């Protein structure tokens, strides 16, 4: 059962030639980190910026496989205990040694971040006890078996306990003791306090303008390829492409699809990677007696409760056409919640085939030969071409007799209304940060339960006992093989029942100068150490 991790995979960024000129790298960000505090805000830009300065016990490679970082080995001791062996000789950027106490301290700080708009406690919850038998061994004892503990540890950046006077910290799940002088989030915007073990140190943080990182002189691993990395937030897509073309920056995130031919024509390169983000349509299947689904006309019942109707709506969608025409090829039709070969997926899952005649037949069988009317809620500035995709789906549904209106709006309004169950059908996306299917299933199709946190983004309130049973079992199974089988089963059950309608996986694009290479990532992160001079 021992899981040994390949530290080498992380520690060796591709060798590069011509180190002399490879000194400065400038990156155009599509959205700006909100803080340099590694525990402040659990969102993508903060998380990948964090990885440059503060390492975790573990991390993920470009395919979202877990690899060692500050820990060199991890294994379950029993059902509820995980043991991590820490690397020796690691130093923080201020020269002090890294030990197990720093890990305890960091986990203790996570729930204590003042004013955090989204904290990391979802990853540290349920740890009953932390044991540190020696400075380079740490054991986590959880209340119930938690197979995802290693995944969770990839998200927590490790701070120096000595820096903040927390070297005598004592773990307690209700609130740690001897925390010293806990840093505030804004403290980390100051380069002298942002002390981590990562390949880079913070040199300048000017909000809205630029973030400058320079090589950490005390870094023990493979030397980072760039002496100095400047990150500039350029949040509008057009100007971001212009900045690349004008030579202001060397690499940009998320260029618009329409600009790709131009970028290539001007002699720049792109890197693309299938992401862990699924775009899907969720249907309201809430069956409570006092509930009337809000967006359906032409029938008194909620037709979406009938599996045949859901299947018809899925069959009516031409995913290939959406991927090719609307998404310009930067999407792959989906039949599952994560693309193969991520953990828990099955190789043989295929997207539902486009079959309008079959869809009509199913509608007739279900008692809706003349269809009905439905409103599809959608954001229009959140996912790639989200508004246009919804328009296309509306046409496809209307063609099989389900007259569809599109209600498109800005993301902030959309998510508020969706969370109040104002849509009978809505389009949204889900990125599985953990890179395994349990995360997607638990969020999107598990029966909502406020106590356990299951089904938290299941705003169609889909419920299915068989899915729940397999999933709950999977989420407490430590054995990888068994867990994978359970997830595959849960997913197949949910997909066969059309718990939601998967559309496609987004493909993420980076564009950069032709003398660079980038290992494009599944998690949509931009990692400077993975950007290398082209060979």
């Amino acid at each position, binding site marked *: 059962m021992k899981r040994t991790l390949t530290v080498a995979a992380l520690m060796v960024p591709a060798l590069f030639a011509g180190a002399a000129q490879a000194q400065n790298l400038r990156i155009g960000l599509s959205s700006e980190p909100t803080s340099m505090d590694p525990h402040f805000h659990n969102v993508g830009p903060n998380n990948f910026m964090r990885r440059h300065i503060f390492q975790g016990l573990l991390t993920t490679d470009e395919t979202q496989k877990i690899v060692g970082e500050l820990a060199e080995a991890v294994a379950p001791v029993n059902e509820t205990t995980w043991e991590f062996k820490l690397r020796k000789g690691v130093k923080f950027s201020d020269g002090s040694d890294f030990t197990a106490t720093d890990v305890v301290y960091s986990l203790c700080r996570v729930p204590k971040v003042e004013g955090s708009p989204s904290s990391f406690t979802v990853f540290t919850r349920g740890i009953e006890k932390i044991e540190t038998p020696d400075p380079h061994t740490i054991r986590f004892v959880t209340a119930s078996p938690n197979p995802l503990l290693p995944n969770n540890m990839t998200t927590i950046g490790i701070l120096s306990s000595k820096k903040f006077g927390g070297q005598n910290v004592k773990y307690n799940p209700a609130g740690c003791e001897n925390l010293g002088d806990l840093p505030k989030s804004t403290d980390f915007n100051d380069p002298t306090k942002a002390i981590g073990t990562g390949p880079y140190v913070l040199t300048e943080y000017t909000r809205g303008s630029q973030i400058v990182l320079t090589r950490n002189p005390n870094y023990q691993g493979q030397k980072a390829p760039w002496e100095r990395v400047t990150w500039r937030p350029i*949040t509008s897509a057009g100007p971001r492409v212009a900045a690349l073309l004008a030579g*202001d920056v060397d690499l940009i995130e998320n260029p618009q699809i329409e600009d790709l031919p131009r970028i290539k024509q001007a002699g720049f390169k792109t890197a693309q990677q299938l992401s862990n983000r699924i775009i899907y349509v969720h249907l309201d299947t809430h069956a409570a007696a006092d509930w009337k689904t809000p967006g359906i006309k032409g029938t008194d019942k909620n037709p979406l409760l009938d599996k045949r109707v859901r299947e018809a709506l899925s069959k009516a969608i031409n995913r290939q056409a959406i991927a090719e025409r609307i998404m310009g090829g930067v999407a792959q039709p989906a039949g599952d919640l994560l693309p193969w070969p991520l953990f828990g997926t099955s190789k043989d899952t295929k997207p539902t085939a486009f079959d309008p005649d079959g869809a009509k037949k199913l509608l007739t069988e279900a008692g809706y030969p003349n269809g009905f009317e439905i409103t599809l809620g959608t954001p229009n500035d959140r996912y790639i071409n989200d508004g246009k995709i919804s328009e296309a789906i509306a046409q496809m549904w209307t063609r099989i007799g389900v007259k569809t209106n599109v209600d498109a709006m800005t993301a902030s309004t959309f998510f508020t209304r969706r969370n109040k169950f104002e849509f009978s059908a809505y389009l949204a996306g889900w990125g599985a940060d953990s890179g395994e299917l349990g995360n997607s299933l638990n969020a999107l199709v598990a029966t909502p339960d406020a106590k356990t946190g299951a089904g938290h983004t299941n705003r169609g309130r889909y419920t299915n006992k068989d899915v729940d049973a397999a999933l709950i079992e999977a989420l407490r199974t430590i054995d990888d093989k068994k867990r994978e089988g359970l997830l595959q089963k849960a997913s197949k059950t949910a997909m066969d029942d059309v718990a939601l309608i998967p559309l496609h996986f987004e493909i993420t694009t980076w564009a950069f100068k032709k003398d660079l290479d980038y290992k494009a990532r599944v998690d949509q992160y931009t990692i400077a150490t993975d950007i290398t001079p082209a060979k």
Partner: protein
Amino acid sequence: MLVYLIRRIAQAMLVIAVMATLVFFAVYAIGNPIDVLASPQADQIELAAISQRLGLDRPLWEQFGIFVGNALRGDLGTSFVYAEPAAKLILQRLPATFELAFTALAIAVFLGIPLGVYAGLNPDSLGGRAVMGGSILGFSLPNFWQGLMLILVFAVILGWLPAGGRGQTATFLGIESALFTLDGLKHLILPALNLALFKMALVIRLARAGTREVALQDYVRFARAKGLSRSRIVGVHILKNILIPVVTILGLELGSMIAFAVVTETVFSYPGMGKLLIDSIGRLDRPIVVAYLMLTVVIFVVINLVVDIIYAAIDPRVRLSEVKG
């Protein structure tokens, strides 16, 4: 003058109070900040914790009461997104916006007025017509498109200037600004020009119309008959008399350049206040939006006051009526 000033300030306070109330409830009506801010990974337990941390679990009236109480003590609230005081975040962005707005104002005045006067004196010449034609383009083309074209021509094709962002800053007389470094100025030219184009077109039209009217007045003819040089007639007698409408309009426009340079700041990724506002609206960061608009009211009131004082300096009649009143 003192009574006038006090009345002005009282009015401003009222406007600020009404504005703050409206904006507070309007942002609330747009949506729930937590739905935007929280990581999608956050479950119900975590969402409840965030609500509590940000004080959003209390009833709206209570939230408003806390906001008013704090505001009276000079605390405009803490940003949901950055966990820093909203006023501080806005003031950090002030220098960037000011350098942009004043550079744009200078371009509008020092290019717009001479061109407008020229077009007014020579309405039928080719040059005069060209200026007028250009000014139509100036305010009929959308601002963001102009910005993108400037980037395309001067940054991408010619490669003379950077495509966006703020350059290096330096401190001079205690003010930190990009105006004091070459790199900073290079970064400033395109966005300032973009911001100035519309105002310049406006100034050209006002100056031209004014010049045409004033040039026919008796005192101009008299001055000419007296044998005064052309430069003195234009530079003193005409210019002074066309300035009143130009100053009025520029005063108002300066306010909007400072407060709502959103489009230019977005296109050029210039880290000014407008960019902060638009980002904050997108994230429903209510404390920043409310504080920002309150500050905007203050800026407008101050500018109007300054404009009134400049009037008095330019036009003696205004001074006379003030003394009487």
